[in-house]
Structure formats: C-alpha cells, structure tokens
C-alpha cells in the first residue's frame, strides 16, 4: 500500500460517505482488493493459487459447519452419523463429498502456491514474514486435516490416529506422558475423538485469522512477480480490480469445474476404501496409509531404519519428519541469493525441478508398504530433500552466476512481446515517471 500512483477511494454517495467516516470497511476493500491496489501486470496463472486457497478454505468452513449439524462425535455414533449424512440428510451426500474432496483440493492448491513461492523467490526480503505466516497456515492445515479424517472413525481414522499419536512417545523422557495427554487415554478412544472434533472445528478459524495476517503482510511490499524485479512505477502495475478480479474469476471457474468433476464422478478416488469399515481396535489393516497430502512426510518418517549416533531409528524418523517441515521456516536465511526469481538463476532452477521430482517420488513411496524397493528409494529421496535445503541451496545461492536481470517489469514484458531489449528500454524510458 505504498505506491504513490495507487487510486484513492472517493465515496460518491451520502451513504458511502457516512459509512466511510464511521467504519471505513469499503475503503479497506477498495485499497486491498479493489482498484486501489496496484499489482504487477506480468503475473502468470501460478499467481492464481493464493485466491483459490482462500476460496477452498471458505468452502471447507461452510460445508464443515453444516456437516457438524448432523455429525455425532462419539465413538459409538460417529461412523453411523456419517452414513446418516450420506443417506438421509437432504443433499447430505453432496455436502460430505464436497468437504472430503475439498480438503484434497485445498492441499493441491496450497502445494502449487508454495512451489510458486519457491520458484520465484517470494520468500526473500522483504517478504520473510509473509513466508513464515504461510508456513504457519500450512502446519495448521495439516493438523486440521489429520483430525478431520479421524472424525469418520473408520479403520484408517482409528489406526492413523494410533500411529501418529504414537510418534510422540518416541520423544525421550516426556514422550509417554505427552502421548497419554494427547489421547486422553492409552489408545485412541472417545476422549480423543471428542477433543479432535473440538479442535477440528476451531482451527479453520485460526487459519482464517492467519490468512488475514498473511494477506496484510503481502500488501505491505506488494506482490512479487515472475521476474523477481521490484515495481518501479505505474507502467509496471495494473489495479487489482478489474484486472485480477477478472483473472481470478476465470481461475475460480476452472477450479470449480475440476472440483465438480471429482465430487460428482470420482468422489472416493482420493480416499482409502478401508475407511468405509467401522474402526476396530482389535484388527489392524494390512497397510496403514494417511491421506495423500501427507505421503511425502510419511515416507520420510519410515525411511529411518537404523539406529545412528545413539539415537534410535524411530526417534530419527520423528525428528526428520518434523524437521522436514520446520526447515522450510528457515528458507529465507538458507537461500542467500540476491536474485529472487529462478527465471534468472539457471543452477537454482535445475535443482528446483529436481526437488519437485524428489517430492513426487517421496509421495509415491509414502503410499507404498514399507518394503523394498520403496524403502531404499525413500532413503535416497529423503536424503536429497534434506541436502537440497540444508546443503545445496546455501552453497549455490552464494556461488551461482545469475542471468542479467531486466531493468524493470515493463521492460521484461515488452521484451517478451518480441521487441529488442533496446526498443523495450526506449519504450519504458518514454513513459514519464511519477515524482519519487
């Protein structure tokens, strides 16, 4: 919100002026997502995913509140209440599938959003806090998703809860106490289910609050862009409305179309059949697998099979799994390159794509049973993951030679239109700059 050429909100109606002088909410909207917020004009479709994530959150909250009107958070009733929703509640089947599929779509969109940030250096100064808030949102999403899945109280709900809460007992000295405290007992039971329901209802609103901080933190420096070069003047930007409202509306159309196809035609494709079996504490499923958005971390957890340096393998797995997420918080300080965008960082770009492939491999391994050859592949893929962020990035960000950067966004845009760099520079120079 520090662009001098940004349009200013001028209420024209009496009602508008009355509200503006008492609680300037329309002004806030105008300044943040209206015609008063300048945005780089060269954003590509990878910049749609933030808004899509926000919409996905709203869809989850609305469908979730409605489902909570019909769900019973008690071990004797939960599974049947979900079937009651599917069979007897008006449009219940649709609401349940929207919520379950919606969670997967929320994660798809957030992963694309995160990888966009990794590629274009959106975590670099002055956007470090923006990145940290995003990581907090991601952690909250993982907790919320995990607890939501338990609420069904199917076989995978129960055994997934058993496995994940068991991880905490790997912590030395206090592990067992924490484990019992989390469960409210000695194995997942009614106490666990009830508190997971309470927290599952609460956390999305916490996420919503952090999202507001996240957008606020973004609007201070303004959006990054595919060149990574800062905004120099009005020729580099367009007002958010109508340009990005129009583009986001189109993006939403694509999102909802894909969402509808899965909800109405492939609703169980991203789930596990075992969760249609009521939970049985006396019978373990052949393969315990979490939902697909946890698979890479599940692979990392199970990749540690040897006791190493006096630390038992189980504890290594737990430490590594949590570290894999926590190291992302340090990314702005691990990657020291003054160049933001991988467009101009050929070495970093190469390793970025290796990372993408590596994460997909880890995801595949997380879905498979913990046997060969998946175990060895997990170990090598996990090794690359840690090496990438903790060893490779710190080194190459200091030694690589980036490509020459464009002088401005406009220059890059006009160059892309098929003109020479000189002609582009001349075109940009011909535009009068506002007084600095």
């Amino acid at each position, binding site marked *: 919100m520090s662009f001098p050429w940004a349009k200013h909100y001028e209420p024209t109606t009496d009602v508008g002026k009355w509200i503006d002088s008492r609680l300037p909410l329309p002004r806030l909207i105008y300044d943040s997502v209206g015609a008063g917020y300048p945005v780089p004009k060269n954003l590509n479709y990878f910049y749609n995913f933030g808004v899509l994530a926000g919409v996905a959150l709203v869809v989850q909250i*609305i469908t979730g509140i409605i489902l909570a*009107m*019909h769900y019973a958070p008690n071990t004797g009733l939960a599974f049947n209440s979900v079937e009651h929703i599917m069979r007897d509640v*008006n*449009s219940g089947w649709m609401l349940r599938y929207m919520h379950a599929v919606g969670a997967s779509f929320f994660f798809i969109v957030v992963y694309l959003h995160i990888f966009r940030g990794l590629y274009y250096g959106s975590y670099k100064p002055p956007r470090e806090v923006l990145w940290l808030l995003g990581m907090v949102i991601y952690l909250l999403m993982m907790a919320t998703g995990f607890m939501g899945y338990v609420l069904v109280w199917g076989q995978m709900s129960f055994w997934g809860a058993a496995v994940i809460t068991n991880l905490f007992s790997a912590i030395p000295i206090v592990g067992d106490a924490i484990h019992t405290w989390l469960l409210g007992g000695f194995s997942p039971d009614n106490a666990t289910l009830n508190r997971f329901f309470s927290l599952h209802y609460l956390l999305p609103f916490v996420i919503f609050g952090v999202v507001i901080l996240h957008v606020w933190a973004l609007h201070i420096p303004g959006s990054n862009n595919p060149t990574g070069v800062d905004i120099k003047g009005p*020729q580099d930007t367009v007002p958010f409305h109508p340009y990005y409202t129009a583009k986001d*509306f189109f993006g939403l159309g694509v999102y909802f179309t894909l969402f509808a196809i899965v909800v109405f035609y492939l609703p169980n494709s991203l789930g596990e059949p075992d969760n249609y079996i009521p939970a049985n504490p006396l019978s373990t499923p052949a393969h315990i697998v979490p939902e697909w958005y946890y698979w890479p971390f599940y692979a990392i957890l199970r990749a540690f099979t040897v006791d190493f340096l006096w630390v038992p393998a189980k504890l290594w797995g737990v430490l590594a799994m949590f570290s894999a997420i926590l190291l992302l918080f340090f990314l702005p300080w691990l990657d020291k390159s003054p160049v933001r965008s991988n467009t101009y960082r050929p070495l970093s770009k190469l390793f970025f794509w290796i990372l993408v492939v590596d994460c997909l491999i880890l995801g595949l391994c997380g879905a498979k049973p913990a046997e060969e050859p998946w175990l060895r592949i997990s170990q090598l893929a996990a090794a690359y993951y840690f090496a990438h962020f903790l060893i490779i990035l710190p080194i190459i960000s200091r030694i690589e030679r980036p490509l020459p950067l464009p002088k401005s966004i406009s220059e890059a845009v006009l160059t892309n239109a098929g003109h020479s760099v000189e002609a582009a520079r001349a075109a940009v120079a011909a535009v009068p700059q506002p007084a600095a």
Partner: protein
Amino acid sequence: MATDQAHVSAAGELTESGERRRDFIYIATGAFAAVGAATVAWPLVNQMNPSADVLALASIDVDLSAIKPGQAVKISWRGMPVFARNLTQAEQDAANKVAVSSLRDPQTLAERTKEGHANWLITMGVCTHLGCVPLGAGEGEFKGDFGGYFCPCHGSQYDTAARIRSGPAPTNLVVPEYAFKSPTSVTIG
C-alpha cells in the same frame, strides 16, 4: 495523459471519465455467477429441513385393540405425547349433553372423532396453555372435575371430549391428523 495512454484500461470504447463501458459479456458472466450462487445456496439451506429418517417417523400406526372401554394409552408421536382413549357410552353421553355454545372452544364430540368411531378420542397430550402433559390417561390418574383430563401445572380441566372447561387453557386438546386403517388400527400423521 501519457500515463493513461501507457495503460489504456478500457475494453472497447472509453466514456468521458475514462471508465469502462458495461459490456454484454460482463453482464452475462455476472448473471451466470448469480444464478450459480443461488443454485448452490438452496441445498445449504434445505439440509436443515427434516432428514429422510425423521420424515419416516412422521407417521405411525397404532394398534387400538388392547384398549378397553374406559381405558386410554399414551403414545409417542413426533416426539410428543398422544392420548388414545376408548370412551364408554356414559362418557360419550356426558360429552354430548353439554351445551356447545357455553364452551370456551365450541366443538361437539362428533367434530372431534371419526364417523362411526365416536368412542375413539385421539388427541395430543399437550395442554394448550403452556404445554404440560395433563393427567388422566394413565390408570388411576386424576381426571379432573369433568372426567377427562387434568393439567397439574396451572389447573386446566378437560372433559370427556378433551374440551377445555375450566382453567387458563384457551382451546381444546388438539386432534391430530389420523385415519382408521381398520376397526382397531389408526395411522396418525
């Protein structure tokens, strides 16, 4: 101004103030979005209406064969009590003797029972004053001065046709929708 020219922000022609003309495509898109929003909103509201299992219990069959003349039973229907009473001839006569115009809520016994089944008095067991369950249906319960039902909460008294005779209740006990399936069984609701 050069700045405006550098990023002409209109599609189609500009009006004098430089604002965008409302193109048909925007109106069509907006209309579609509005219709979509309304279509999605309906299931979100309708899900709060009674679900199929609740609607299935909206109607119950009651077997009256075990109720002897002079006896009554309490039935649970839609979560509320219903009194099914087999009136004796004496009770029917007592109800018919009352001058209808003197009643707070004028109704004859015939209006409150089914043709050919004048002995079967089926009413809600909910006092029309403030909703308590009156006494008189169970074996040995106090039936009040008029031989029908007595509400202990504020003293409303109903006669053998379950009509309000004294006390604060404004109207007679409600007769629910019901029909005889056979001489000894009714469907309520």
